[in-house]
């Protein structure tokens, strides 16, 4: 730790921190564009200028490339420092188009925000504007480039060089004719391309999927976890009036840093299309309570060994826990498993894992068999009369096999988010909420327990969380110990029973998760990415 003084305030900061990060970590302000805590320092925007006292007098320098030293005295508000900050901003805005009203970045643009705070308000270019050209060029599957808005901070270039290591972007020309461009003959189509729009401090790089869809100040943000694979990248669901507009990566220094793959980022539309909305018994539509009552009646008439349960690596910990509990109390827990026939997906050394299910480790934690070979053979033999299947789509994954396995079952009770083939095959069908619409937890491949929160409530009384469906059924079956109103309560009850979760409550889970005592099944992320030395604190904009 080093003791430093910033604007008269005594601070204690970690050795090796740079001055800019030290200032930001202590909730003080210092403007910056090119600096990003997870990218190498470029020091080219020259806005984080500070004055540092030294033996030869005060030195004006950039905060991002100056490491703190014991006893360092730093001024961010001195007239000299202020002047340097203001003039750098003035130069950045010199030929920048003033198209904020039609710019998609407005509201989260660093140039806009910082100019409000540090800017020189008397505009004095005095010469005609220099047009860099290049409006909304299509440079990739998801990305549009607006060259004249670019402030040449090179964050995107450093990102494509350092993380996906694909190096599609570069600066062409020299001096004030410099502009960001994509190399000839290539497209910005790497698996992490969406991140360039996050690091872009201005509206130069924008997402086709988000462009002109919603002004950012209307967006509500909810902490969540990506559902796309077993990595469980931290993310924020950004939504308004029950519609999701984008997924944004959320910082987790130990997991995804501030990155996210495109597969995960652009999956948001999947959760709001082809949704199942109605409870269906055979061919007739029912309300949820009618459906539950009918199911309960049906199950009451069966012996415990007539009912099989299919848990799911796609479901939350709470869903699977309550399903297991139902089988423990009412049926036979040996008849519960989570066979999953989904294909493995693309994997890399950065974030993506081949296992595209977010909670397979969670099943392990709960002791649910993830293969279920025995159960499947017995199903095939026709030993079961009813199956409760949660968040699973065997008919979509392997129809032939699914028909063989589930064809003899009289009552196939399916809880599904989407209108899948399995939903078509179901005899009793219940719509359930996605992870975005409920509270819950996943355990990722590196055994990190992570919480996601409900972003918004669905305007459909027939649609509940998987765990709440189980709780309602259990009540209809007159079982004790299922008195829950929200998955968060389920978690708290579960934490008392599962040793690895001991002492945790839903609200006490840190926003970046906790690593459980459970052997990890995947390597840590960023295996081949150079260690980035300046990871210290939070990303501040």
């Amino acid at each position, binding site marked *: 730790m080093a003791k430093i003084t910033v604007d008269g305030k005594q601070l204690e900061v970690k050795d090796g921190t740079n001055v800019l990060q030290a200032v930001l970590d202590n909730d003080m302000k210092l403007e910056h564009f090119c600096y990003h805590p997870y990218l190498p320092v470029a*020091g*080219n925007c*020259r806005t984080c200028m500070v004055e540092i006292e030294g033996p030869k007098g005060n030195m004006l320098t*950039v905060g991002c490339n100056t490491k703190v030293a014991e006893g360092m005295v730093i001024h961010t508000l001195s007239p000299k420092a202020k002047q340097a900050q203001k*003039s750098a901003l003035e130069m950045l805005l010199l030929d920048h188009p003033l198209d904020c009203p039609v710019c998609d970045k407005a509201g989260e643009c660093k140039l806009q925000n910082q100019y409000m705070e540090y800017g020189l308000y008397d505009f004095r270019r*005095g010469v005609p504007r220099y047009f860099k050209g290049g409006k909304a060029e299509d440079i990739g599957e998801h990305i549009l480039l607006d060259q004249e808005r670019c402030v040449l901070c090179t964050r995107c270039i450093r990102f494509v060089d350092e993380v996906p290591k694909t190096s599609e972007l570069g*600066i062409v020309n*020299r*001096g*004030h004719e410099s502009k960001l461009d994509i190399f000839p003959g290539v497209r910005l189509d790497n698996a992490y391309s969406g991140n360039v729009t996050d690091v872009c401090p201005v509206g130069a790089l924008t997402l086709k999927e988000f462009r002109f869809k919603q002004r950012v100040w209307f967006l509500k943000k909810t902490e969540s976890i990506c559902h796309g694979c077993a990595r469980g990248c931290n993310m924020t669901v950004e939504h308004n009036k029950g519609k999701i507009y984008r997924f944004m990566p959320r910082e987790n220094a130990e997991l995804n840093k501030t990155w996210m793959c495109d597969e995960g980022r652009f999956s948001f539309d999947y959760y709001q299309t082809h949704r199942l909305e109605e409870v269906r018994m055979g061919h007739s539509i029912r309300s949820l309570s009618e459906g539950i009552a009918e199911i309960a009646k049906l199950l009451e008439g069966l012996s415990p060994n007539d009912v099989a349960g299919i848990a799911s690596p796609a479901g939350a910990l709470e869903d699977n826990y309550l399903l297991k509990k139902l089988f423990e109390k009412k049926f036979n827990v040996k008849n519960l498993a989570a066979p999953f026939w989904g294909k493995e997906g693309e994997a890399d050394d950065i974030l993506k894992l081949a296992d595209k299910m977010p909670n397979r480790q969670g099943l392990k934690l709960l002791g649910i068999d993830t293969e279920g070979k025995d159960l499947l053979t017995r199903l095939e033999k026709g030993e079961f009369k009813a199956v409760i299947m949660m968040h699973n789509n065997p008919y979509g994954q392997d129809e032939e096999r699914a028909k063989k396995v589930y064809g003899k079952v009289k009552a196939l009770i399916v809880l599904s988010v989407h209108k899948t083939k399995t939903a078509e095959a179901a005899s009793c069908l219940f719509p359930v909420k996605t992870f975005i619409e409920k509270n819950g937890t996943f355990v990722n491949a590196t055994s990190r327990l992570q919480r996601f929160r409900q972003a918004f409530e669905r305007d459909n009384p027939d649609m509940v969380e998987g765990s709440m469906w189980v709780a309602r059924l259990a009540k209809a079956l007159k079982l004790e110990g299922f008195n829950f109103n929200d998955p968060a309560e389920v978690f708290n009850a579960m934490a008392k029973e599962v040793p690895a979760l001991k002492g945790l409550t839903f609200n006490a889970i840190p926003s970046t998760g906790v690593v459980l005592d459970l052997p990890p099944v995947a390597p840590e992320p960023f295996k081949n990415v150079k260690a980035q030395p300046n990871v210290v604190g939070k990303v501040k904009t």
Partner: protein
Amino acid sequence: MADFEPQLTKRFGLKDSHTLKVFLETGGYASLKKLFTMTPVQVIDEVKASNLKGRGGAGFPAGMKWSFVPQNTGKPIYLAVNADESEPGTFSDRFLLMNDPHLLLEGIICASFAINCHTAYIYCRGEFAHQVKRLNAAIEEAKKAGYLGKNIQGSGFDLEVYVHRGAGAYICGEETGLLESLEGKPGKPRIKPPFPAVVGLFGCPTIINNVKTLSSVPWIIANGAAAYTAIGTKESSGTHIFGLSGHVNQTGYWEMPFGLPMMEFIEKYGKGLKGGALKAVIPGGSSCPVLTAKECEDLALSYESMRDHKTMFGTGCAIIMNEHTDMAKVLKNLTHFYSHESCGQCTPCREGTAWEDRLMKKILDGEATTKELDLMLEIADNMEGKTICVLSAALAMPVRSFLKKFPDDFRKYCKSAPVAVPGAVS
């Protein structure tokens, strides 16, 4: 000036002076015998004692620079020779490379021995096509004769020298821009720290020296530091190649010890002014603050005299301007040059140099008021010292000195300030 022996230009004018044969006949590579009896530390101490300053423009003591190289990193150490001479008004390295390439090679061997380097690169300005040919021929000759390559002259010291031709960017003469270009990247100066002596070419410790600096070393090794400090002035030891261009009757370059008065230089070597009385002198390449005729009266060609006059020695090649020179047009030339050559990395330089140039155009077009002159001064203040390298300062200094020392040349282009009309919409 009969009282000094030319060190850098003594072979200039000899027939085939660039060949090894002539070089050896005239005492070339003689310093190596003594060099290999010394230890590297002794060589560094000798050069330190000689007070040899970097001839590239900044004037940093060469021996001191060499002593910064860490010897215990386990990485190779490189020497990069800066032959990217492109400062406007400067023309001496090109002649050295043409007429005496072996002298540079001898200096490279001395410096490499001192810093324990076995691979040296000569970064040549892209336009120096002929010089590159000469250098490559000289390296071939020297290799064949055992002055380069493995076990030089039986000393056990190995050295390979490679010539790299740039693509003609001024900024590649900045030492870290040069390293980037040498590595095959765009020539954009690196942020410091780390300094190149610690993390330089390919991430290894690297020393970057100018052609003239290295060419001065063999003489120092052969004759000793004391003999070198005896030449020149107290703070500026040795000799230098001084150049004259502009409004003089005879332009050219001459090797001389430091300390000659500027006016004597103009009279004696430049054969007097051409076309009118003296108006201004840019003493050492275009980025040095300009001096008025009055300031030049007691100016001498030395680091300390230039410093006392609040300008820089720079490259030692002066641009002379007579009374009919329009300083506004001169400055427009400079603003154009620096805005064109800015690498575009740092905001204040990228935008500032171009802004100055656009304002200069406005001034010359007669569309500016004195407000623009003030703005130019403020932009100069806002760019200098706020960027990674000194290119922004290289324009800020002339802008400030031109506007302050020759205000009338600029005011004559300016419209009188607009009178505010009540109720008018601006």
